[in-house]
């Protein structure tokens, strides 16, 4: 089957190493994962995230509908506010994680994972029957570019007419970039400050606007980054990857996403009863962060063992942290192993390598890296 291409594909084909990522032809790196990773932690990187799903939800019942399908409380949002959430099946299994941006109570932008584009659209459509809401998938008409890093705001500012500093974390604004009207949300998937730019009215067969903005950002000093760095950056930030760290067999309490579930918000939402039950009965497994003390890189699927060498769980995401220089991982283990500092072992090929349970959101020191870092 031919791979789907994004608006920025012509740049990737010329400069990047393209792989099949969930059916999309995407760059895994341009110059190398390590250098791109570092560019985002120390300066500014730019990512094509146009493979992600984007949808307008519009109509009188939009807010009510979203509160019915997601676990978080979208009514808390001010206009131009964004909210991270998950949506669940009736049994509490996670359908996807997503961000909803509110413009008015009757108009929201919904952003979700590339690999779940079809599934999410069908799920939302099916569950919208009793609501007066219109859902329009605009993934192919809107390009998406993420500018990330401690210098992301000043880099994007160079090609933006409005003052970006006034846009708060997780807020979205209508701004003018490279002369084009766009939406820009102060969000990202790297742990760093930055924006995700939605290039409106930019169909796949007329990608000029997106390519112009991409080119202007690169010229302004943003380093093009592929999916390899995107993954190593999100892992260091301790952020979940759907399909690895959560899926339909996992509920938000197990996944460590309790903070996105508002059980007391008014009205029923899908999965509420199941999640309430899990809350009362407790979980059998819990997502934790692990950091290696011995040499070795934990990887997706590796077994986690306790000090008695019994298998207690499995790594769901793992790799070398380029910033910290050690192996880090997200893994599911029984809740009695959740305590920070607990000694665990990862089975790496034929040997057991020692590690410990650590705080994972993020793995790095927030005073030194990430959007909360001390600004000098």
């Amino acid at each position, binding site marked *: 089957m031919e791979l789907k291409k994004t608006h920025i594909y012509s740049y990737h084909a010329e400069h990047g*190493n393209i792989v099949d990522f969930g059916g999309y032809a995407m760059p*895994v*790196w341009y110059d*190398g*994962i*390590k250098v791109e*990773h570092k560019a985002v932690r120390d300066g500014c990187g730019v990512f094509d995230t146009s493979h992600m799903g984007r949808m307008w939800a519009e109509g009188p019942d939009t807010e009510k509908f979203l509160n019915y399908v997601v676990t978080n409380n979208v009514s808390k949002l001010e206009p131009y506010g964004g909210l991270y959430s998950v949506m669940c099946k009736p049994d509490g299994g996670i359908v996807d994680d997503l961000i909803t941006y509110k413009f008015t109570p009757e108009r929201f932008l919904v952003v979700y994972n590339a690999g779940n584009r079809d599934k999410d659209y069908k799920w939302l459509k099916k569950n919208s029957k009793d609501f007066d809401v219109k859902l329009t998938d605009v993934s192919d008409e809107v390009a998406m570019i993420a500018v990330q890093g401690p210098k992301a705001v000043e880099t994007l500012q160079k090609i933006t007419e409005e003052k970006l500093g006034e846009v708060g974390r997780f807020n979205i604004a209508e701004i003018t970039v490279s002369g084009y009207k766009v939406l820009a949300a102060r969000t990202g998937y790297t742990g760093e400050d930055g924006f995700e730019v939605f290039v409106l009215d930019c169909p796949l067969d007329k990608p000029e606007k997106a390519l112009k903005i991409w080119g202007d950002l690169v010229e302004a000093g943003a380093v093009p980054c592929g999916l*390899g760095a995107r*993954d*190593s950056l999100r892992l260091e930030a301790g952020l979940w990857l759907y399909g690895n760290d959560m899926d339909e067999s996992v509920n938000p309490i197990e996944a460590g996403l309790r903070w996105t579930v508002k059980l007391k918000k008014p009205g029923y939402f899908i999965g509420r009863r199941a999640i309430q039950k899990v809350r009362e009965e407790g979980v059998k497994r819990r997502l934790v962060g692990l950091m290696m003390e011995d*040499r*070795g*890189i934990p*990887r997706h699927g590796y077994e986690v063992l306790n000090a008695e060498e019994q298998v207690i769980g499995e790594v769901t995401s793992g*790799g*070398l942290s*380029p910033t910290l220089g050690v192996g880090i991982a997200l893994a599911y283990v029984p809740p009695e192993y959740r305590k920070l500092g607990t000694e665990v072992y990862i089975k*790496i*090929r*034929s040997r057991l390598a020692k590690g410990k349970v650590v705080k994972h959101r993020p793995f790095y020191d927030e005073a030194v890296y990430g959007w909360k870092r001390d600004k000098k």
Partner: protein
Amino acid sequence: MTDEYKIEEGLYYTKEHEWAKKLGDGNVAVGVDDYAQSQLHEIVYVELPEMDAEVAQGEALGAVESVKAVSDMYAPVGGKVVEVNEELLDSPELINDDPYGEGWIAKIEPSGLEADLAKLMDAEKYKAFLATL
């Protein structure tokens, strides 16, 4: 396609992209080749073989890893591991820079060298093999 990769004459190659080189002292140096290092790109970690381990040809010997991927390494020849390249612990990128030289991984005291080498490819055959990939 094959010209993209450096293939050194006088070495023996496996289909899994390891190389073996006969040394003057009777031992055999082994490593991964230019194709393997270029596929992995930035190598960030090397799992060295255990000293004194006895391995058969084709048995797991160690692994070479990039940020994203793991590539297992198999013994191109059987024998006993008599030396490992500890430089790689701190500088795994030596394999990217110089896969047939400073990026060597281990030295093996071979147990059945001629029979093992007969199963490997010389530079010319290996070049033809890469052309099929």
